[in-house]
């Protein structure tokens, strides 16, 4: 290693390059001992990040990334050696190859299994977040590769929940909302090559940010109904090819509809409900999340339940009741409860569609039986389920 380090600092440019290639090869080893053997070279790798030779810098960046993945000892050395400021200045490079490499290196630090409270505050305290936000929206100038890498970096920072308030104050929400809408336009235009790689971390960031309680400004910045449309466009586009994206979209949909009636209302008035119902026959997590979104809508009150009922939610629920997944059935029962609570006539229609039989199969299933019986007793007794039709009610009110 002493020899290699010497060659790495040679005054001969091509010797340096070959030494860099050697180090890069070594960094691919799965043996952490090899990564640790490369420790003497890290101060030089960091020094060279400020250089101008593109291919050489790129090699140094990837080498550092590989070494950082492999060994906690290496990561612990890189921090005091000044990797954070070195990265902040390297991020100003105009070279796409270098930026993409940095987008690989930075997550290796961010994803480190040791306490994120060590590295992340240093990252958040530096100029890195501002650079990351700039680069994540750069897909037009710098290509998708750079935007993808920094979107993932942002995701690792956001999902560590160290100081999302700081990121929000730096404008992360508006940046990502605009980006999401741009991506939706790209879907409409049919330009979707590799889009799922960028979309996934952006969705995750927005969902997690929306779940922050403070500051209020975050929720305000997200109150754009176009987000709802964008989410459905993504689900339609990627349902067949990249099904993992559907659950990511539904997570955002849940967080949008949980508290804010504006999104529940828009979902109904934009006629997006049928599309949501088409997701119910899918696999476990997707079905569960779709049902949760429906519950979010139903919980808003009678006006919402009426719309759900009119747009044929019951037949879909009858199908989900036939599934074997207890969690899915349980969530269906919760939805039924909300519907019957706010809209008594829904119960009568449920009965007339053989709902009792659909429930019967779960009567003896421990996690479900209490709720099944509660539904039967409260809403599905023949007398209790008689609907008060609007015509009869007004007739009754007329003076005889």
């Amino acid at each position, binding site marked *: 290693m002493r020899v290699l380090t010497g060659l790495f600092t040679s*005054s001969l440019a091509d010797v*340096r390059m070959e030494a860099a290639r050697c180090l890069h090869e070594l960094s691919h080893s799965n043996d952490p001992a090899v990564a640790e053997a490369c420790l003497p070279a890290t101060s030089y790798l960091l020094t060279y990040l400020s250089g101008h030779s593109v291919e050489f810098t790129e090699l140094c960046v990837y080498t550092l990334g590989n070494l950082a993945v492999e060994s906690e000892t290496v990561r612990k050395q890189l921090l005091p050696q000044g990797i954070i400021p070195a990265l902040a200045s390297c991020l100003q490079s105009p070279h796409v190859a270098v930026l993409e490499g940095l987008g690989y290196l930075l997550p290796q630090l961010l994803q480190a299994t040791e306490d994120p409270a060590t590295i992340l505050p240093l990252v958040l305290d530096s100029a890195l977040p501002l650079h990351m936000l700039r680069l994540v929206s750069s897909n037009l100038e710098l290509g998708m590769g750079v935007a993808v890498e920094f979107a993932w970096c942002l995701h690792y920072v956001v999902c560590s929940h160290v100081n999302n308030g700081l990121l929000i104050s730096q404008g992360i929400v508006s940046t990502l909302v605009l980006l999401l809408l741009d991506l939706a336009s790209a879907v409409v235009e049919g330009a979707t090559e590799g889009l799922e790689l960028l979309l996934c971390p952006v969705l995750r960031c927005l969902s997690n940010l929306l779940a922050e309680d403070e500051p209020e400004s975050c929720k305000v910045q997200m109150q754009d109904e176009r987000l709802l449309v964008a989410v459905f466009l993504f689900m339609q586009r990627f349902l067949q090819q990249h099904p993992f994206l559907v659950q990511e979209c539904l*997570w955002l949909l849940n967080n949008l509809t949980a508290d804010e009636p504006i999104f529940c209302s828009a979902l109904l008035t934009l006629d997006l409900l049928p599309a949501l119902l088409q997701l119910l026959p899918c696999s476990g997590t997707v079905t569960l999340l779709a049902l949760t979104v429906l519950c979010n809508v139903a919980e808003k009150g009678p006006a919402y339940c009426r719309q759900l009922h009119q747009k044929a939610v019951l037949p879909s629920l009858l199908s989900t009741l036939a599934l074997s997944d207890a969690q899915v059935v349980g969530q269906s029962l919760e939805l039924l409860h909300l519907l019957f609570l706010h809209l008594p006539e829904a119960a009568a229609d449920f009965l007339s569609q053989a709902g009792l039989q659909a429930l019967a199969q779960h009567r003896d299933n421990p996690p479900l039986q209490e709720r099944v019986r509660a539904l039967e007793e409260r809403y599905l007794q023949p007398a209790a389920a008689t609907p008060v039709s609007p015509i009869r009610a007004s007739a009754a009110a007329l003076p005889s």
Partner: protein
Amino acid sequence: MLLPPGLSLSLQAERPLLPVRPRSPPRAPFCFSARRLRFHRQHEFFEDGDIHRHLYLQDILTNVTEVTERSKVSEFSCHIVGCCQVFDTLEGYEHHYNTLHRNMCSFCKRSFPSGHLLDTHILEWHDSLFQIMAEKQNMYQCLVEGCAEKFKSSKDRKDHLVKVHLYPSDFRFDRPKKAKSIKHSKPHFKRDVSVPMDVNVETCEQSQADSMEICPSESTENPTQLASGPIPSVQEKQLYKSRIPSTVCFGQGASRGFKSLKKKA
């Protein structure tokens, strides 16, 4: 999955908001209550997407290791005066130029890996005021970018680099300046066969006296060509040109002198 026709991203009219009933807690045995979900980094929810990401990365990383065949061009030499390095690929030239001619000190022609190290070198080696000020206050700046510490002497700085920043004690870009400033190579120069430029070459007065970077004049293109004896001086080198394509460069390059440091401040 069918979306309604005519769905577009621009919403023309204000959409009516359906009236909302105030929330009430769920009635047992029902437990649903709408809430925003937040997932922490290790959550299994992320598994599927993370796998997809991992596969994508594996694809990229194999591409970086491939040393792409660079298209060759007809041979050309470095245009910097005095540099006789010859290239047959543009990338080779670009790397050479960026390594040896960028960040070059216009006073002593040494090149540095970064502008930061060059600035520090110029300040400490070529600023006549520096030594005077250094007697009164801490002037030796830490070499790590982002660290604002300054020290009384280069030794103190080196101790700091080793202790706080875990730098190697023989960091090649931090060599103390000796009193004499060397401009020309010395005739007696013992070379270490295995490494062209190495801290072990302590017998060489010049290498000891040299600064924090690579001094081009120490190197030879091919370490095995020792038979030629001492490093030739600038004038002599030209006789060896055909035999030793060396990287001894005393050209102008993208060098900076003291002026730019003033501008920066």
